[in-house]
């Protein structure tokens, strides 16, 4: 694992730089720290930072950029006629990559020597069988162009790695010597170090932006690929979700959206009344003892991982509903409205339980923030407490409560584990809450787990779904913030 050792080496170099820089600065001041411009540690830190930071930066950029570079170079080597019909360059490239990785693995495990892999000829040797022997399965026989491309891939990759090690070490050593020579008693080490630290802080803060850009770009890129393979009209306006890995799938988001919204609506139907009433009781009626006891207990519900709720839906709530509404002798009511444990109601109810504390603690904060003078005025006019709450406190808190409900809705739409385990896998338009339906998140999971082929629309559709989900939840959050900001009453 050379990268690991490289990192260790860089760390060792910068540690060395710290000690050396500190010593040199002290030496120029004849061992008297009082003559230095900055504290001795700053001279050490300066050398350590100039050694490590550019080198690590280069390392990270190199690791990120190298695949792109190699991919482009190798993709240019593949002749157009090699690309089969109905497939993209990506498919051939994944063959090339797998072959290259397989050969590397063969060298690593000792099945072949480096020279042997370089001397391979697709006409004379059965590469597929040889690689199959060490557990690398190739999809098809290796064609000479693919082998050539794979060899180029390996050459570029190994050259790239060597160059990377060389470049980062050069940078580190260069930084070390340069800053070491600068370590003089008049050198303003503290100012330089502090500027460097500030740059690092800014870098850390912009990582948040980088993550968002990464999310959007990674999904946008694959979504564009998807719309290249599949009609966007069918995705947005079609009526059927029927992925078929042999091709010719109908992939429309509408049935999934229906399932998502239906389940979220049921969840909100459970969570909003319970959560809101709980919040009203806690903030208006409950004594401090009840509040101190009930509020944290309710909030535990929010801290339970969603996998627990998923299991609860799958193994407890689903079978329970089946017992009540199920078919034949299983059904207590003699109705046969439900045929399996997974259903919209199962997932919706359990998700509702999960959202109760979400609604209640947000609303609680908002209701508590309504000034006491409003309540006193209403009570003074002779209103009962409940009339005060309904006609004075709630209207004043309404924007905040709507915001809380929208946030809960965004949470419900993006929730994955509960619907994966409790909602089922059938995409359809139906109004019956006892039927199983499916959601955007469950389809993302099912299209992206297992063997994924990034050249087929059936896999790529998951990115389009993910992007839709991202846009949808982001929109809800922004709307919630907007409502809260615009309609908030100002009491001061």
């Amino acid at each position, binding site marked *: *694992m050379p990268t690991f050792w490289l990192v260790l080496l860089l760390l060792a170099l910068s540690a060395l730089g710290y000690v050396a820089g500190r010593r040199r600065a002290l030496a120029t001041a004849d061992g008297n720290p009082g003559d230095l411009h900055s504290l001795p540690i700053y001279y050490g830190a300066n050398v350590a930072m100039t050694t490590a930071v550019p080198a690590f930066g280069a390392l990270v950029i190199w690791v*990120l950029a190298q695949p792109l570079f190699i991919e482009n170079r190798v993709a240019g080597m593949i002749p157009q006629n090699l690309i089969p019909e109905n497939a993209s360059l990506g498919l051939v490239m994944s063959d090339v990559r797998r072959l290259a990785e397989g050969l590397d693995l063969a060298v690593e495990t000792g099945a072949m020597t480096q020279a042997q892999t370089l001397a391979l000829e697709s006409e004379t040797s059965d590469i597929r069988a040889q690689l199959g022997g060490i557990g690398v399965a190739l999809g098809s026989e290796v064609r000479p162009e693919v082998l050539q491309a794979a060899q180029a891939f390996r050459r570029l990759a190994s050259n790239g790695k060597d160059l990377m090690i060389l470049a980062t070490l050069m940078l580190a050593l260069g930084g070390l010597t340069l800053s070491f020579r600068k370590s003089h008693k008049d050198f303003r080490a503290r100012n330089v170090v*502090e500027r460097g630290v*500030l740059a*690092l*802080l800014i870098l*850390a*803060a912009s*990582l*948040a*932006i980088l*993550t*968002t850009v990464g*999310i959007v770009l*990674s*999904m946008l*890129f*694959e979504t564009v690929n998807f719309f290249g393979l599949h009609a966007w009209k069918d995705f947005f306006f079609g009526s059927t979700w029927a992925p078929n890995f042999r091709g010719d799938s109908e992939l429309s988001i509408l049935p999934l959206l229906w399932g998502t919204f239906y389940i979220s609506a049921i969840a909100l139907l459970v969570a909003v*009344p319970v*959560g*809101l*009433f*709980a919040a009203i*009781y806690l903030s*208006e*009626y409950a004594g401090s003892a*009840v509040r101190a006891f*009930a509020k944290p207990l*309710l909030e*535990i*519900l929010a801290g339970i*991982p*969603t*996998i*627990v709720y*998923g*299991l*609860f839906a*799958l*193994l407890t709530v689903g079978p329970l509903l089946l017992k009540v509404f199920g078919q034949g002798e299983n059904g207590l009511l003699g109705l046969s409205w439900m045929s399996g444990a997974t259903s919209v109601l199962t997932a919706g109810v359990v998700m509702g*339980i999960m959202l*109760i*504390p979400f609604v209640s603690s947000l609303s609680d904060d908002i209701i508590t923030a309504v000034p006491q003078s409003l309540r006193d005025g209403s009570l003074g006019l002779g209103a*009962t*407490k*409940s009339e005060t709450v*309904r006609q004075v406190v709630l209207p004043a808190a309404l924007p905040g409560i709507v915001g809380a409900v929208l946030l809960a809705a965004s*949470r419900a*739409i993006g929730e*994955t*584990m509960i619907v994966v385990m409790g909602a089922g896998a059938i995409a359809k338009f139906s109004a019956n809450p006892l039927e199983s339906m499916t959601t955007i998140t469950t389809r993302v*999971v099912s299209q*992206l*787990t*297992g063997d*994924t082929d*990034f050249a087929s629309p059936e896999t790529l559709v998951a990115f389009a779904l993910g992007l839709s*989900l*991202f846009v949808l939840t982001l929109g809800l959050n*922004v709307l919630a913030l907007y409502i809260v900001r615009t309609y908030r009453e100002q009491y001061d």
Partner: protein
Amino acid sequence: MSDLSQTPAHPTASHSSLLTQSERTKRRNAAEKRFKAYGATAIALGLAMLLVLVTTIVSRGSGAFQQTFITLNVELLESKLDKNGERNIEDIKRVTTFGYAPLVKTAMQTTVEGLGIETSLKAKQMAGLLSKNAVAQLRAYVLENPHQIGETVEFRFLAQSRVDGYLKGRVSRDSIANDKNISAAQLDLVDTLIEAGVVEKTFNLGFILGADASDQRPEAAGIGVSMLGSLFMMLVVLALALPIGVAASIYLEEFAPKNWITDIIEVNISNLAAVPSIVFGILGLAVFINYMHLPTSAPLVGGLVLTLMTLPTIIISTRAALKAVPPSIRDAALGVGASKMQSVFHHVLPLAAPGILTGTIIGLAQALGETAPLLLIGMVGFIASNAPETIAEGLLSPNSAMPAQIYEWAKRADPAFYERAWGGIIILLVFLVTMNTVAVLLRRRFERRW
């Protein structure tokens, strides 16, 4: 004059008395009572849900911590295990688990006969009470202690999952009518063996420390290896999210000028906190696996994805902790000649440390229970059967994580695995409760009011 005529000289209210409530007052008071009752019901409902959830988890999961074992004396026949008698380890290794099956069968038969139990079962059916794991256990023991070949050694074998279920009340004679794995006659034998003390249910350390097992052997499945997977992921999260999160918060709280770039960063962070976790999984799949070609199912990738997910949580709580440090501290530091950077790193940060730590622990607890992104980067669907031996292997070799392992068990059709899933949840919740308790205690112990 019309004004006057509209005001009655004797308002009707004057007929009412304070001692008797009017219709309207009664109605209003009843509405008040109802309203209050709705509130109390909502609270009770919420708490009841919590109670139901906790009782379900405990009642259905506690079984996983107990397991049925069958104690047998197995004669390690030299003629079967080491035909040459040279105790050459390579020769002994050549005997596969099939070679050990007769030993177990004979041991079972002699035990039953030795106890004087009458049964119509054949030896093979008797041995069917044992887990398929038994022969592997025996072989592993022999390979470790080849000198004991030829002796008779006492073993505690796992019973197969139906027998285990029978002792736990999950399996009854009615429910196995169509079960090809076990028959009523075998259960009769189990009854007599329980009386003889050969079959017994004891604490199951293997569940907590062991590895996952294949579909056929739920009795041997454990959560230990995936716990290690979770541990490595948490190490990655801690190593990346804490420094980056603290650095970002320090910049935003202490140095950032008030301009549109800072605004964008702040809005971004609060939006990232609300992005569904599965979107982070998609990001991880696209960037770390598809683009950077990091190994699938590796805890390193899981840790990176969870880092991105936890960062907003840590940043938000760290900023709150920094904000709570009063400006007088900064002013005092600046006043005695510290630079801005020194005032932050030497004074503000140490004072905010307890708050930062609390936020980090809570963020880690959140990450520990997160499942959805792990599904997309391939941490389910295979059997995590080997514990990693080195740190690099722990980070890079495929593993599962606790919540992913629970999901994996819940997907398997055998009810014996459901018990494991609930048991896994108990362990997961123990971790979460511990982490949150530590966070609360830290806050209580070190929180300073200014």
